């Protein structure tokens, strides 16, 4: 029941926030904050819950459209709980980053923000594939509005590109879902969109590969991975800061979650024979996007490309499909969620202060804004995989696991560690070091981080240090889920081999 509450609180809170704008333009942000904090509090109760059958700590299953075998079936296990917590945590952070930045139509903005979050929570908990697709769409449309209305100079292009990429590939996934449900009808005599039912569906050979690809493309577009990544730099550079936080911190992770929860378990044989291709795409993403990132002058585009590069480690880990690799993928999702969100907030904060994202105009900000410099240094160093911080745990485990599955691609991907240090340190050099440069912009508003900003960044820093020094708190939650997934796919493959 609690899962239903988590989602509906956000839906309702969103509507109230929108309406409250008429009373006072400052109410929406307050209501949004309270709503998400309430959600976060409720989520903590999931941490103590005893896992029931199959490791689910909470579930709700209500009929929806029984005629087509569609039900309103939500459930959460350790993996979902981790991602729910990440969503709510970054939701709070996103509201904080929008606090002063969003003045126009604030009510509608926070409505969209909360509805996006609600969609994401749905995606992380839906175990009915039709419902999953429904939430997949719910998180897309409000996000489109956030970019298109509150974005920057080229917002319509970016929003449309984001929409088309996700919509077209979402359609592929819908076709795959319908095909799966159809095969369930053929094999078991009834339509069903239930995850557990569909796991039992036997598909084989080329057909299985095609259906699997529908999911794979939808998820790797969201992730994103080469060659479906090019919507991301545009979306990020144009989105308002809060939009970037949600996009980089949470929305990308829905793609990774989809791969782990659906793409591989539903199609074990196809996925395993496809794994070398997926891992190759991952390696290309890691290296190619690191290289493109280095060439960018727009600081948000740069961070966007680094996101694609880091997400490559997730794909690599998922398709290596062993415990270390999967845990690495999950840790990378969590840690990158924080580090990328923080970096986008820093870039957004800079843009808010000096009205440019062009790094070539910047330089020597260290003396002027030392706190911001130290914070930026921290998150850059986290992003380049410094041990002791969360990103290291993720990428190290992903590579450690991937090495056991495919040595060549792991060795190639490892070069990403070198490239990451090249672009991360370049940003620090260009923005904060060197001689102070202010010829191209008005620096009268270039002030150091405020106390409120320090609270957000401080919280994210503590999160990354926690993940880096004692990752067990997180690994323990996802461990049973991942082990179960690995075992069930292995037995499925073994069964096929026997036949």
């Amino acid at each position, binding site marked *: 029941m609690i899962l239903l509450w988590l989602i509906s609180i956000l839906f309702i809170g969103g509507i109230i926030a929108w309406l409250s704008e008429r009373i006072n333009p400052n109410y929406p942000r307050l209501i949004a904050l309270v709503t998400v904090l309430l959600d976060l509090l409720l989520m903590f109760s999931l941490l103590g819950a005893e896992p029931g059958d199959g490791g689910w700590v909470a579930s709700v299953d209500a009929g929806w459209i029984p005629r087509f075998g569609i039900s309103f079936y939500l459930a959460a296990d350790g993996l979902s709980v981790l991602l729910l917590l990440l969503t709510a945590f970054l939701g709070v952070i996103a509201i904080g980053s929008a606090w002063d930045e969003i003045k126009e139509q604030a009510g509608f903005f926070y409505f969209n923000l909360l509805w996006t979050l609600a969609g994401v929570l749905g995606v992380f908990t839906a175990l009915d594939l039709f419902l999953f697709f429904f939430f997949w769409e719910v998180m897309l449309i409000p996000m489109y509005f956030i970019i298109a209305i509150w974005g920057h100079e080229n917002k319509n292009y970016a929003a449309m590109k984001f929409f088309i990429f996700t919509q077209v590939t979402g359609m592929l996934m819908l076709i795959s879902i319908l095909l799966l449900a159809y095969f369930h009808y053929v094999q078991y005599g009834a339509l069903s969109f239930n995850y557990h039912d569909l796991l039992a569906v036997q598909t084989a050979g080329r057909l299985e590969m095609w259906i699997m690809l529908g999911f794979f493309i939808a998820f790797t577009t969201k992730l994103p991975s*080469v060659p479906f990544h090019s919507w991301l730099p545009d979306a990020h550079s144009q989105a308002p800061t809060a939009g970037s936080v949600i996009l980089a911190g949470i929305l990308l992770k829905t793609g990774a979650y989809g791969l782990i929860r659906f793409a591989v378990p539903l199609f074990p044989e196809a996925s395993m024979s496809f794994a070398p291709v997926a891992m190759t795409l991952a390696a290309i993403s890691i290296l190619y996007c690191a290289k493109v990132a280095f060439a960018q002058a727009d600081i948000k585009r740069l961070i966007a490309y680094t996101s694609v590069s880091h997400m490559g480690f997730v794909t690599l880990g998922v398709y290596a499909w062993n415990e*270390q690799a999967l845990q690495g993928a999950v840790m990378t999702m969590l840690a990158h969620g924080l580090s990328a969100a923080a970096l986008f907030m820093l870039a957004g904060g800079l843009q808010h202060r000096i009205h440019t994202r062009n790094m070539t105009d910047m330089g020597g900000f260290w003396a002027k804004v030392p706190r911001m410099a130290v914070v930026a240094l921290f998150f850059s160093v986290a992003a380049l995989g410094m*041990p002791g911080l969360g990103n290291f745990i993720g990428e190290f485990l992903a590579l450690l696991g991937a*090495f056991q599955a495919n040595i060549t691609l792991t060795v190639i991907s490892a070069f990403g560690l070198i490239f990451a240090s090249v672009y991360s340190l370049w940003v620090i050099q260009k923005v904060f*070091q060197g001689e102070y440069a202010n010829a191209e912009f008005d620096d009268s508003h270039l002030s150091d981080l405020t106390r409120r900003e320090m609270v957000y960044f401080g919280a994210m820093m503590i999160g990354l240090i926690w993940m880096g020094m004692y990752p*067990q708190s997180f690994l323990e939650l996802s461990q049973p889920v991942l082990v179960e997934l690995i075992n069930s796919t292995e037995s499925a493959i073994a069964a096929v081999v026997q036949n």
Partner: protein
Amino acid sequence: MQELIWLLPTYPLLGFLALVLTAGRLPKNVVAIIGAGSVGLSFLTAAIIAAQFLASGEEYFIKEVWTWMAVGGFTPGFNFYLDGLSLVMMLVITGVGFLIHLYATGYMADDPGYSRFFSYMNLFVAAMLMLVLGDNLVLLYLGWEGVGLCSYLLIGFWYTNPDNGYAARKAFVVTRVGDTAMALGLFLLFAELGTLNIQDMLHAAEAEWEIGNGLAVAAALLLLGGAVGKSAQLPLQTWLPDAMAGPTPISALIHAATMVTAGVYLIARTHILFELAPNVQELVGWVGLITLLMAGFIALTQSDIKRILAFSTMSQIGYMFLALGVGAWSAGILHLMTHAFFKALLFLASGTVILSLHHEQDIFKMGALRQKLPVSFFSFLLGSLALTAFPYTSGYFSKDEILIAAHGMEGPGMIFFYGGVFGAFLTGIYTFRLFFIVFFGESKAAHPPEQEYGGWNMNGPLILLMILSVVGGFIAVPLDPLFGDHEEHHISGLLHAFMIAVPLIGIAISACFFYFKIWSVEKLMASSFAQSLHKFWNSGWGFDWLYDRLFVLPFLWLARINRADIIDSFYGLVVEVSRAANGMIVKTQSGYLRWYALSIAAGLVVLITIGVML
């Protein structure tokens, strides 16, 4: 007390946190007390622990603190491992580290970034201690990357000059190439042996791999990749001279005494693995030999006082690698320790010289400083003697052991021996070239010093390091239980005398050129061949030039031509095509009845045709 070994990195880590969180608001003397005091506390704790450990007679001691992560059989912990090797390392790091911190409280006194400086320094010491005390390779890697980060931060400490930033990034990226090789080594070791706990891993390797096993060779090679990056050995040596852009105490601490010797530590720590891969072990020796000779030649041609010392460091670490290559593990570590004493001394003394001369680093703009700068003079005298292995100074014992062990090695032993002796000859020349030019002759300083810079906090460490440089060779390092007693190799008295005499001949030649001025460098440099050779050596054998063309420029070129991301232009093409298609379809909506009639008719024909054919 041994239980409290976790306090060692904790003190400087707390110092780091205190300095970072107060963000430069503390008064300087408080910063100095926190910065140097935390490392001092670490040293005291380390000394007590060391005394108890040696008294206990145990071979090793493990303190488990917490499980870092536990992922399907991969369970590295935050565990500390103390044996003879880590004991020597922790004492060097905290002891020499404390002296350098103390010196820095004076050296950096006028710098606006005082607090920032000590916060980085403390973080460095904490990371370096994790590196040598960790019981598993992942924890070692944590320290390994941590010291690299601090090295980056401190090389680029004076950040307003972009050259310093470049040097810092170069150091980080070049060493990260090695680090990545090392990480792959860890993946390989875990995949094959199922653990990264160092002792368990070594036992498993001994049990599973016979000598010369391909996997052992691969693993040793990958670890060697990490070691040559961190220790500035061929082919990843290019970052070290540029690293001199940082404040001089950094050069003493990070780029002479501790971090750059981490590669030596790594190989000594995993020496069993290298013994399983004899070819790789021999390669370690070759890397050391070639690096020590190349760096020696470069040092002959440099004019910046710190760069001379940097190439000298590179060369001395070459000796340590040579020692590892011939299996003289204890001698390599002994040289690591004595080198930490005399090279820290030389760097710190050069710091005093530089400050006394108002930031002059060119030795040809110094001269005649022996009376004006007596402490620096004696520091350089004793440090240089130890560096050239003058009999009974600290450097003599360690280098002597290394060369004798090389002589006793089968195969390339003779090349290693005579190469090493020739390197000692070069050391004699370049070290005393520096010494005579800086402290004798005529003063060429733009601003001759009125007095020597520094109070007790700077001179005290120098005096202590002078003592250690002279008598440090008598310290008994407790390494035998770890590396085993190798049979003593003996060389004839005559050969030994030759070995001792060679560096002295180097000193004499240097004196003839730069003290007595019997011979003249100008005459030597008269031929165009000599000039191009000088230029070649001065540029570090052209490695920077080569790497720029092989790696840096192609990468920049690739980045530049594809700034707009070529994959995106494919989607741009899709948009263009659909626009064009849209345009064509729009044209069909022309409003002319005859067009519609025609198209309906055409459609009918097509449909009927299909119908007939089916």
